[in-house]
């Protein structure tokens, strides 16, 4: 397992319930404050994101981790302004380089999209239009933000981007259609398309999930290398802690639309604080894990986002909930700093209990 060195800026978690926002926040490049994204459906209100806050600086990579249905993808779409505006109710703040996006004019957000912030998606086959060549799609992304650029210039740019992401014979492959590319090449092309306007923020939503293992590593290496070149901020959304371990500077663990734990990647991996994080770590496949040992998946399923359990949303699945004297069933735990810098956790267990349980019960199994 490879850990990245910790940078100077750590994430400062905030309680989902206490933030009141006024004016631009601190100097962070991306700052999300008390973000709530709710969808009205026929079955009830879906609280996909419910009071999420985090911050991210240029040059750094944040890994948002959680099971499917934890609200991580909605978070990324919310930042990009790509949630279905008709049905979604969004509140809170998203500050990008000193500009608030939630309340901003959608047209302004559109102008930022693809230029200042870009996104790559899980399945590059369905995420690219089947009827346009890879080059056309990259050129389109370029020209929408460079209206004065000529076709030739845009095409040169597309070829350049394909070169940068490591597509062989880019001047020929630029006219190929997505279905003529292999899975890994398609994701490279997606990255080329996302980075064509040199965005400052790149959000990668499960960028490697649809790819096989060797290609996964190549793509992660590519993202990391490009980030070093451009110094942009990267948000990687994944259910796979392995990916986060590979690339992230910081980790944010999401559950039921809320932040359970966040902190520097190294710290979270070595001293995880939240029982949910323990569960994620325990269910992570490892090369050095012995065959006979079974993966320990977290018991139960993620809660319905329409009926989130009261108190700590994780308590129905938490093996240690009985240690909290019932608080976990009534009281929402707030995100509080741990004794390690920049590392916060939302859990009713006392730091002592957490340390004891981790060292005695969890660590030996990892």
């Amino acid at each position, binding site marked *: 397992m490879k850990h990245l060195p910790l940078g100077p800026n750590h994430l400062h978690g905030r309680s989902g319930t206490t933030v009141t926002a006024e004016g631009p926040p601190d100097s962070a490049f991306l700052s999300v404050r008390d973000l709530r994204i709710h969808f009205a459906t026929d079955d009830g209100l879906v609280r996909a994101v419910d009071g999420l806050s985090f911050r991210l600086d240029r040059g750094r990579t944040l890994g948002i981790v959680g099971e499917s249905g934890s609200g991580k993808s909605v978070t990324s779409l919310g930042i990009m302004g790509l949630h279905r505006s008709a049905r979604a109710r969004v509140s809170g703040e998203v500050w990008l380089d000193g500009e608030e996006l939630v309340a901003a004019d959608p047209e302004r957000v*559109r102008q930022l999209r693809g230029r200042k912030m870009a996104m790559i*998606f899980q399945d590059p086959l369905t995420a690219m239009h089947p009827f346009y060549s890879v080059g056309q799609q990259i050129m389109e992304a370029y020209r929408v933000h460079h209206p004065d650029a000529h076709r030739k210039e845009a095409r040169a740019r597309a070829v350049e981007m394909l070169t940068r992401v490591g597509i062989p014979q880019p001047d020929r492959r630029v006219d190929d*259609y997505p279905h003529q590319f292999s899975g890994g090449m398609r994701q490279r092309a997606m990255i080329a398309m996302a980075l064509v306007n040199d965005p400052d923020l790149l959000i990668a939503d499960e960028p490697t999930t649809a790819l096989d293992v060797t290609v996964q590593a190549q793509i992660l290496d590519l993202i990391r290398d490009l980030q070093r070149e451009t110094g942009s901020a990267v948000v990687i959304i994944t259910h796979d802690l392995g990916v986060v371990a590979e690339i992230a500077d910081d980790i944010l663990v999401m559950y039921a639309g809320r932040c359970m734990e966040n902190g520097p990647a190294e710290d979270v991996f070595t001293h995880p604080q939240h029982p949910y994080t323990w569960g994620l770590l325990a269910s992570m496949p490892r090369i050095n894990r012995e065959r006979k040992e079974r993966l320990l998946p977290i018991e139960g399923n993620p809660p319905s986002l329409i009926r989130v359990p009261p108190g700590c949303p994780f308590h129905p699945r938490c093996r240690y909930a009985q240690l909290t004297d019932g608080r976990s069933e009534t009281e929402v735990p707030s995100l509080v700093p741990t004794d390690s810098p920049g590392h916060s956790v939302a859990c009713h267990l006392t730091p002592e209990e957490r340390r004891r349980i981790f060292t005695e019960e969890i660590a030996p199994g990892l």
Partner: protein
Amino acid sequence: MTAYIVRRVIAAIILLIVVTMITFAIFFLVPRLAGETSTQLAAQYVGRDPSPDALAAVQKNLGFDQPLYQQWWEFAHGIVAGRTFRYGPDASVCHVPCFGYSFKSHLPVWPEITSRLPVTISLAAGAAVIWVITGVAIGVLSALKRGSVFDRFSMGLALAGVSLPIFFTALLSLALFSYKWPVFPNLQYVPITQNPVLWAKNLVLPWITLAFLYSALYARLTRAGMLETMSEDYIRTARAKGLPERQVVIRHGLRSALTPIITIFGLDLGLLLGGAVLTETAFSLPGVGQYAVEAITDNDLPKIMAVTTLAAFFIVVANLVVDVLYVAVDPRVRYR
């Protein structure tokens, strides 16, 4: 591509041959299976109370005394090489493509088909323009404003459009706009070469009636297609690029949603060119469809053969055009 088209054309010709064979078989074999002799078949084409020698003469002249395969062969041969008939004092040459002489009137079939084609083409083409524009526009708007008053109203109208039979809407529109408020009085087909304005004016009601049905179909298809494509991942990608919504809808959404509609459009148009039977009958338009009704009512084989072959021809051609077009539209499809 040339090889592909050549292959397809050969397949189309074989299909047409099979269609004519089947039509022939239905015409001759079904009555025979029902116990009818060729004399009884011939009796349909002689006046009332025919004398036996008259029957025999007609039977011979229509070729019913020959084996079926030979009758078919002469028919098929006539299309490519012409035939000679004797329906008068002198033998007359029926030129290529010769679909024979009507059993009833003993007049050549092909000239009448060609004289009726402009009517059917006028009707089908005009209606097609209307239904493609309105159907697609309504479908796209409905999909984008899903659940809105506009969506509900237009889909309600579309449901009416697909459910109401043409002969009802045709007669309703006639009753309202030709008789009660004579906006389009005394509807008669006028060739475009004779008076383009009157041509268009007198076709407005038939166009709208026919287009109403198809607009409804296309609006529903387009709406469904748009709803499907607009939830595709690549639409999200297009938005993530920062494309303006209009470009997202038109360049990315509509492009995909319309692709299957092209196929259906080609076939619908091909089908209509073979004769818009109900519309032509209701509006008394002297087109191929009306001719088809006449052919079937009179049980007049050469007419039936001509109409069937023509309809099959149009459908086969439309199919071919659609397939070739599809390759141009969808890069994933290749000539096979």
